[in-house]
């Protein structure tokens, strides 16, 4: 064994100097030496192709080094080497074997300096090697590079590489990329059409990016019918919505078919430049304050040859009616554009359906946020009939609790787990205190409760501002809530929103459980229906009212933590939700948790739906939503689910 190794290394040692001169790759380079030395983008093609198609194992390394300007040529015999700088000279490395073959001074060798055009050509040639590289990561990188910056030349090596691909994921990616490149660069219309049709209903952005240029149009104008060689998309009537008369006239001017019309401001400038003795073209300057007078003056100037003539309205109208305006495709084959249009229509339909699904998810998540914000209110306002304007500030307190906990507990998951019960406890206590100190004395005076709680609201808000400052504080969600659940390119929902949705469902369950299955819930329902009767049954209404109010406030605090996770925590956090929360409860129907759920769903969907009509303007969406709610209350003053009979209270 040892003898064998020794023999092999000996063979290598004596073989090296020989291969340095006579390796096939060196011979190939020498054959194309003149082209390489010429180093011109126009003529270098055959040399690069020869290297690429040689099938030699060293070809890829040579091309890469050449592209990276690391290929050197010895002046004495024209041989090519890789070189490394060593002190004052260079160490030469054989291009085929990578072996050390001596050294040279800087004067003896010359660096090949391919310009950017040649480097790009080499890059295209290299794609073939990268696509068949043994390393899947490099193959993937090559595919990424092609997808980013596709060229016609990539098509052939890509096709060739599919057959030998072993990785199934890469195979499908290559096949998709091949179809995309076929659409853009294949010469055969049938192949292109087949590829186009294969993308019908595809949601990928890349498919649309490949198809859209095919149906891009430019506008043109001719005197008669459009030439038969052109692929006409449609004819345009001047003065219609798509082609205004001014635009049509601009097209005519561009085509040199009519004289341009001088714009009003140019006329004004021309007139100002030709004022003589207080007159322009015989019209006194003082009279030039109407367009008619200016036109007369300009016509006079034009007649005198002082300014270029402007086309009159009649001429323009004549020209517009005597010419044909049309849109033409840049793509000349009508079958291709037809197929592309059909494919894009199918995609648009699918995209629309997916957008609707995405919108539904968005609306659901918005609804769950409103529900979370409103569920505490559904208890204090819906069940007890107490208007608590400070409800929003309880939400804010919950969010700030989360923020403070994160200052002490650096682990985000743990801090959220601590913050949720802590926020509940703090806002529960605040709610109980408020009920004891203020609200208890104002039962039966709802308007004054509203005002008193509003006083508390502004005090709390300012207090938060004094303590935490006006800038937004971050409440960071745990790492496992980052990112989003991506269904496809269009439908996705962030994990935080899913978490909020789940939290809303949990609270719905909790509320139902407390109200229907616990002693507390029973007593709450008894007290809200008839406090005196409940009191005579041994229930302490004061205590129950206090606990109910605390519960509603506590839930607001927990909602605050959840809302703070995706919105910035500011002292105005609660204020942003208070009106919507009241809307949710009122629209849903006071005193019924299912009503609140329906109300939140209605408002969430409504807002997202309106935003969809006018995506750039969420303010308008809110405005119209509130208007809709005001109208809605006209028709169902007691909300979606109205209490009937005695429970309704009147």
């Amino acid at each position, binding site marked *: 064994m040892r003898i064998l190794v020794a023999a092999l290394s000996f063979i290598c040692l004596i073989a090296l100097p020989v291969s340095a001169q006579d390796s096939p790759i060196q011979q190939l380079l020498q054959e194309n030496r003149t082209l390489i030395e010429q180093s011109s983008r126009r003529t270098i093609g055959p040399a690069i192709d020869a290297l690429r198609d040689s099938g030699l194992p060293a070809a890829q390394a040579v091309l890469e080094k050449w592209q990276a300007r690391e290929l050197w040529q010895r002046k004495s015999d024209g041989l090519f080497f890789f070189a490394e700088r060593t002190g004052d000279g260079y160490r030469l490395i054989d291009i085929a074997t990578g072996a050390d073959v001596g050294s040279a001074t800087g004067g003896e060798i010359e660096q090949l300096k391919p310009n950017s055009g040649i480097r790009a050509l080499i890059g295209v040639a290299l794609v073939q090697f990268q696509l068949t590289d043994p390393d899947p990561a490099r193959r993937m990188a090559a595919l990424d590079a092609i997808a980013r910056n596709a060229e016609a030349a990539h098509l052939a090596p890509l096709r060739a590489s599919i057959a030998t691909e072993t990785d199934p994921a890469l195979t499908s990616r290559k096949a998709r990329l091949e179809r995309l490149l076929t659409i853009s660069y294949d010469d055969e219309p049938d192949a292109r059409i087949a590829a186009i049709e294969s993308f019908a209903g595809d949601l990928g952005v890349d498919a649309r990016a490949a198809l859209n240029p095919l149906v891009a149009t430019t506008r043109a104008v001719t005197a008669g019918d459009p030439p038969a060689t052109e692929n006409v998309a449609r004819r345009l009537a001047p003065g219609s919505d798509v082609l205004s008369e001014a635009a049509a006239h601009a097209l005519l001017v561009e085509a040199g078919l009519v004289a341009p019309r001088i714009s009003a401001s140019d006329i004004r400038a021309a007139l100002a430049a030709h004022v003589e003795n207080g007159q322009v073209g015989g019209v006194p*300057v003082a009279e030039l304050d109407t367009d008619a007078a200016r036109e007369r003056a300009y016509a006079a100037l034009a007649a005198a040859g002082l300014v270029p003539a402007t086309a009159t309205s009649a001429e323009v109208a004549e020209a517009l009616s005597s010419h044909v305006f049309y849109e033409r495709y840049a793509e000349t084959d009508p079958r291709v554009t037809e197929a592309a249009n059909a494919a894009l229509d199918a995609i648009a339909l699918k995209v629309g359906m997916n957008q609707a699904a995405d919108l539904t998810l968005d609306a659901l998540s918005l609804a769950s946020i409103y529900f979370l914000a409103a569920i505490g209110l559904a208890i204090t306002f819906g069940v007890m009939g107490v208007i608590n304007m400070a409800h929003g500030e309880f939400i804010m307190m919950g969010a700030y609790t989360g923020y403070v906990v994160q200052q002490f507990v650096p682990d985000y998951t743990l801090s959220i787990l601590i913050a949720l019960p802590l926020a509940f406890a703090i806002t529960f206590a605040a709610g109980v205190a408020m009920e004891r100190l203020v609200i208890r004395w104002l039962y039966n005076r709802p308007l004054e409760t509203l*005002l008193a709680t509003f006083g508390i609201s*502004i005090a709390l808000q*300012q207090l938060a501002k004094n303590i935490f400052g006006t800038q937004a504080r971050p409440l960071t969600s745990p790492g496992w809530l980052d990112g989003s659940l991506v269904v496809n390119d269009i439908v996705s929902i962030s994990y935080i929103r899913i978490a909020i949705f789940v939290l809303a469902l949990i609270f719905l369950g909790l509320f139902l459980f407390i109200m229907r299955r616990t002693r507390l819930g029973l007593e709450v329902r008894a007290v809200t229906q008839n406090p005196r009767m409940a009191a005579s049954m041994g229930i302490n209404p004061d205590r129950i009212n206090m606990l109910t109010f605390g519960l509603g406030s506590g839930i607001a605090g927990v909602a605050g933590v959840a809302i703070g996770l995706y919105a910035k925590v500011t002292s105005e956090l609660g204020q942003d939700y208070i009106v919507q929360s009241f809307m949710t409860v009122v629209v849903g129907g006071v005193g019924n948790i299912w009503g609140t759920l329906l109300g939140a769903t209605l408002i969430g969907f409504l807002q997202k739906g309106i935003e969809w009509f006018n995506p750039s303007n969420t303010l308008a969406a809110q*405005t119209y939503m*509130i208007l809709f709610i*005001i109208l809605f*209350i006209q028709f169902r003053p007691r909300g979606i689910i109205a209490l009937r009979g005695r429970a309704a209270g009147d």
Partner: protein
Amino acid sequence: MRQSFIAKNPSVLIFLALLGLFTLAVTILGEGLGIGLISTSFVKTLGKTLCLCLVAIAMDLVWGYAGILSLGHFAFFGLGGYMIGMWLMYARTELIVVESLAQAEIPPTPDEIRDAIGTQIFGVVGGSDFPLVWAFAHSLPLQLALVVLVPGLLALVFGWLAFRSRVTGVYLSILTQAMTLALALYLFQNDSGLRGNNGLSGLQNIPGAGDVPQSLMSIRFFWASAAALAIGYVVAAFVVSGKFGSVIRGIRDDEARVRFLGYSVEGYKLFVFTLTAVIAGIAGALYYPQAGIINPAEIAPIASIYLAVWVAIGGRGRLYGAVIGAGFVSLLSTWFTGGQAPDLNVGFYTVKWVDWWQVLLGLSFVLVTLFAPKGIGGLFDLLTGRRGPDRHGADLGPGAGSFREKEAEQ
């Protein structure tokens, strides 16, 4: 026995006399015509305060007398300001534009003038065309009519919808708050045609009065505000003193009973709601030329709630209470938030009133609601010896939600 209007409302004469004295004092002490003891900016503040007192009277009419806690009256106030602001801005920009275009060699056409004004006004929101709402902005009389018509019509439509479907109590409050929020959000948009959150500015420069110094202009506006307040007070006193006043007080205390007596409750409420909206609009039209700028933040729901706060602190259900509340609280607010109040050092912490005034206001508001539902105006009852009966905790008024102390008054 028929009493005269004055005999039934002795407070009117006292109020008018005090207001007259106050106006005279400010005129003499002010900078424009008097000895200059009061700065121009403070005269403006006083003038603005009078406008706030006027809108507080409107609020008192609708809440203290008719029992409708409207959280939307500052929206009407703001709308009035916007209406007058449109004319002020248009007319002033027109003057500037005409002057600058007159320098050009060629006289401008009417279209060019209009385009230039549009570019000046709407350049800030990236537009130059006049939106439809500016159709009457060139005419002062039309725009003055809109000051009354726009808030009035909005109140009429909204009130008709709300009262017709018998939305009452806190529901109505929330609904009016929603209306205010919707309006504010709408105006915040750039394409609402009213310059989005930039609002209308430069309103203190009255077109055609460029040579009148601000010191004189502020006194004139102060007079106008005082006159409007005087008229508003008399009108409000007139409205609440006769049979009409009795009916709306009845509606406040027990709506159903008044309805069963055959009165058209909705009609009465709608009238009061619309009338007060108009008064609020006029107050706004006087306020904003003195403030100089109006933007949608002014009509956010919070402003309307503050209005209710003023009236509650002053004492609702009595007109002078509203005036006292608005004047007292808003001037105190200006003093505290303006940084003029000295810091309070309590040893371990220095209380900066700019930061803590809101906390104080909120808490004092709670205290007033709890312990002094009659507000500051209740002090006058102590003076005149009017006192509620002591029933030792027995039930007082007709309905649980009504304003029972008033009902039981002897």
